[in-house]
């Protein structure tokens, strides 16, 4: 609630539209005035922000002003914006969620990326692939590797091991001790339980996705 008050103070054209035991809905306008690569964007956008009361969920945004092109790849049919992967968000807010920072670091960059993309056909900061491959890209960034098998090896072993042991061999398969290799990045998943549960849920989703692909392939080959 304190964070909501700070948000309304920073963006005076926002107001609380409704409030229940489960969520707070905020509607109105915010001004975006950002610059990247010598290219400025200054605009007012109309949006609806839904903030779940539950500790574990991130808020989400709906484009109510029709600013986001319906053909833009990162927009749900409902108008909900695809700000980032869950794991990107969790890694960003390790020590607690901050509504103002979330606006600055995810909502505003989202609108900026959209306008930049419409004009230049490319994302100023890149984008994530759709579905769970996007999450894998987030892990690749975090573990500073572009190799799929390295990152899946790390993820599977974090899932399988309940404790961090720095003197053991690193999960990446380098043959080095963990503390001399990916130790620092892996340790986070044991220090912050929400990261590890996100990782396990991402792996489960990925398995489901691969299973569906497999089923489809079997179905089409049996025909």
């Amino acid at each position: 609630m304190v964070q909501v008050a700070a948000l309304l103070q920073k963006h005076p054209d926002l107001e609380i539209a409704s409030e229940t035991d489960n969520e707070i809905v905020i509607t109105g306008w915010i001004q975006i005035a950002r610059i990247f690569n010598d290219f400025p964007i200054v605009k007012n956008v109309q949006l609806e922000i839904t903030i779940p009361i539950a500790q574990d969920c991130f808020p989400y945004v709906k484009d109510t002003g029709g600013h986001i092109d319906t053909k833009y790849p990162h927009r749900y049919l409902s108008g909900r914006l695809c700000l980032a992967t869950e794991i990107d968000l969790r890694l960003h807010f390790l020590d607690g969620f901050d509504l103002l920072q979330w606006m600055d670091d995810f909502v505003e960059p989202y609108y900026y990326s959209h306008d930049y993309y419409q004009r230049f056909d490319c994302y100023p900061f890149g984008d994530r692939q759709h579905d769970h491959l996007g999450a894998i890209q987030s892990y690749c960034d975090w573990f500073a590797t572009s190799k799929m098998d390295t990152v899946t090896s790390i993820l599977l072993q974090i899932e399988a091991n309940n404790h961090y042991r720095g003197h053991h061999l690193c999960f990446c398969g380098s043959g080095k001790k963990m503390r001399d290799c990916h130790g620092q990045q892996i340790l986070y998943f044991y220090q912050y339980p929400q990261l590890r549960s996100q990782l396990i849920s991402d792996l489960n989703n990925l398995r489901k996705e691969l299973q569906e692909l497999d089923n489809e392939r079997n179905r089409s080959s049996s025909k």
Partner: protein
Amino acid sequence: MSISERQNDILDIIKNLDISPTMYQNAIEKYNHLTTYLEQHGYAVTMYPQGSFALGTVVRPIHKGDDASYDLDFIYQVSSSKKSTTPKELRDEVEAVLRDSHLYDDRLVVNDECFTIEYADIGGIGFSIDIVPATAEDEGKKLQLKSESPHPELIDDSIAIPKSENSRYSWLTNNPKGYKSWFTSINGPYAALNRDEVRKTIFAQNTSLYNSVEDVPSDLERSPVQRVIQILKCHRNVYYSKLPEGKELKPISAIIGTLVTQVAEKQSPTTGTFELLQCVLSELRVYSEQLTSDQSVFKQAHPGKTLLTREGRNWVLRNPANPEDNLADSWNKNPRIAPTFFKWLACVYGDLISSLTLSDDEFRTRVAGALGDKQVRHVWGKKYEKVPTSTFTASSQTKPWRNQ
């Protein structure tokens, strides 16, 4: 809010990217020095500028966001005939002459088809001279070109230049002098209308360089036609620098210059810079229909629109001075060039025409997006700015994602 004040402010940015009188004088001195050297050593050549330096449409290119140097192009035309030499011999002969001088040997960069002499920076801005060897085109070829050309009177200036393909040399017809005559025949009436005023302004701003208005070189005068070409080139440089593969997609200056001049030909020479810019953009927007519609449908819908055509599947923009030169050649090799070109022109319209009637802040944002925020800030300071923009920290450069 005054539209004409805003237009002048945009022009101030373009003027800042134009070659300065000091820079121009410097380039001319270097050019004179080179021609004197050649004369003194008994080489029977003529050197003359070609391209944007000859046409008065130079703009400073941007290089990865920073200011880069001006490239000035020259033709080095030998007096011996095309029949008496081969393309390779001519090229080697010119290289030997330039190497012969210690002054040029040090700064000479040898490319397949031209030689570049790089000069030290002046006031932080460098320039380089590109020299293309050439000989007069032979009479038989000229007769053939005349029979194919809508402007046969321009053909006598045709030259042949050594063209390299996989280090094999052949002759390529070119006609920069003829092109300049064509350009001047259309630009002349525009330039004549505001000449006195333009010259007075240049003199007033450069009294340390010139003793009187008469001393101002006519090459520094800029007509609305030249300004429109410069505006489009500046916008192109910034826009395409941000596109992935922008270098391959960027329209060459000759396409921009030729299209603008062709549109200007049909307008009254009293047309002002922004009026002409709007004309050019509106006219060219019609041509974008050729991206999707069948050529016969397009011809029927727009019988007079013949500046930029499609023959079969190919885009064609004839060089007015050389019927063998299709300026849109590269468009037919990379199918993304044409759609990107028309999308770019739509951006120019939004940035520099539609923006003129928006709020101060929106106007500034669009022009800064068009010509670069740094450049606009350099010339305008904080004018029109209501909300300062903030940058993205590394951790706020976040990536959008969609889960189905």
